[in-house]
């Protein structure tokens, strides 16, 4: 992807909406385009968290498995982000990420993004505020899911 195209794509992604141009420049230098095939596993549970993705196309399932039970707990697609835990140090993946459709995404090395945040706290503030909004949204969705509102049993008090 040409640098100018990279900047256009980054600016258009909902995660970076409104980010000052100089910071888009900084990020565009770190970003690289990745492709995954359908059913390809992007990461497994327990993998170290290293890459942060902005999804451009396709659909990814976050899955959890146990004997006799494998479920998709969330799907992510164009406009979504994958791997926010790579913005934290020393974390590992809690889920498996598998492509339901061919996926095109921009990837960033989480550690390098964090380094940039350390060097320039204003940039760091922009990134962390977006990360916080993202995590808050995921937390809210998770809470609602755990209520199991559609099931008569789920609606019942414990």
């Amino acid at each position, binding site marked *: 992807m040409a640098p100018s195209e990279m900047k256009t794509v980054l600016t258009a992604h909902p995660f970076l909406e409104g980010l000052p141009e100089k910071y888009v420049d900084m990020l565009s230098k770190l970003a690289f385009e990745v492709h995954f095939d359908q059913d390809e596993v992007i990461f497994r549970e327990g993998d170290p968290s290293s890459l942060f993705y902005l999804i451009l196309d396709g659909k990814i399932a976050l899955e959890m498995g146990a004997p006799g039970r494998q479920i*998709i707990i969330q799907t992510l697609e164009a406009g979504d982000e994958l791997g926010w835990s790579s913005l934290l140090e020393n974390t590992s993946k809690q889920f498996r990420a598998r492509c339901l459709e061919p996926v095109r995404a921009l990837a960033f090395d989480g550690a390098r993004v964090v380094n940039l945040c350390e060097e320039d706290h204003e940039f760091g503030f922009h990134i962390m505020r977006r990360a916080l909004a993202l995590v808050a949204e995921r937390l809210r969705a998770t809470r609602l899911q755990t209520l199991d509102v*559609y099931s*008569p049993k*789920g609606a019942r008090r414990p």
Partner: protein
Amino acid sequence: MSTAASAAPPATRPVMEPVPVRVTSVSKETHDTFTLTVAPPPGDPVSAFEPGQFSMLYVYGVGELPISISGDPAVRESLTYTIRSVGQVTYQLVTRQPGDFIGVRGPFGSSWPLKEARGKSVLIVAGGIGLAPLRPAIYSILRHRGDYNRLVILYGSRSPRDLLYRKEFAAWGLLPDTQALSTVDYGGVTWRGHVGVVTTLFRLVRMQPKETVAMICGPEIMMRYAARELEARGLPPEQIHLSMERNMKCGAGFCGHCQMGPYFVCKHGPVFSYPEIKPYLDLYEL
């Protein structure tokens, strides 16, 4: 004049008296949900309903329950109900055989604002069995497709095996100017659709908020967060409507069971505009 239209409806049937109707079909939708069609007497007012209204269904000697009408309002020869078997009366309803009789009273309650939505886009947000009371509105919009702009149907359910009307839903999604997206809270590994709460579908919707009328029906918690999120996304609150569930026993405002704040859900609802119901939605144990 056809026989059906000229058959004089009973002049004064007491509101509490059910009309015996013959069950014409019972079909399985999911592991616990069934669709029942019945044949009301030709021309009987019991079959003249507006999308969003409900009937009281009576099982001889067992009991009576409010059930939303889920069929096409233009078809006067039959009434359709989609029922989840969760208790004694619903179990008895879904285990009827064609040819059996049940009792019907109604229709009762308010309806979806299909007139007000003319010229606008319609956003249907359904959760679980909540798709059933919205289906007559979808049928009505599809019959008068030119009166409306875009039609978007969002449907959240617990898991893929809980999704209702699967073939029909897929067909809706193929119609021009129509989006039909479903999502589940938990997917099996073979599920290729969306996983996540129904509001996560909102950003996939192409619509102009100010020119959109939303109709929401599902579990109360889901309706609350859906309505809040739609308002945050710029839908004028008066263009958001939702359908409430309470313990309707009579349907006519006599029994007192379905009260919610100042409303009797059976006669002021079940369909309310968001500004009407919002002050009472967040009051626990109201």
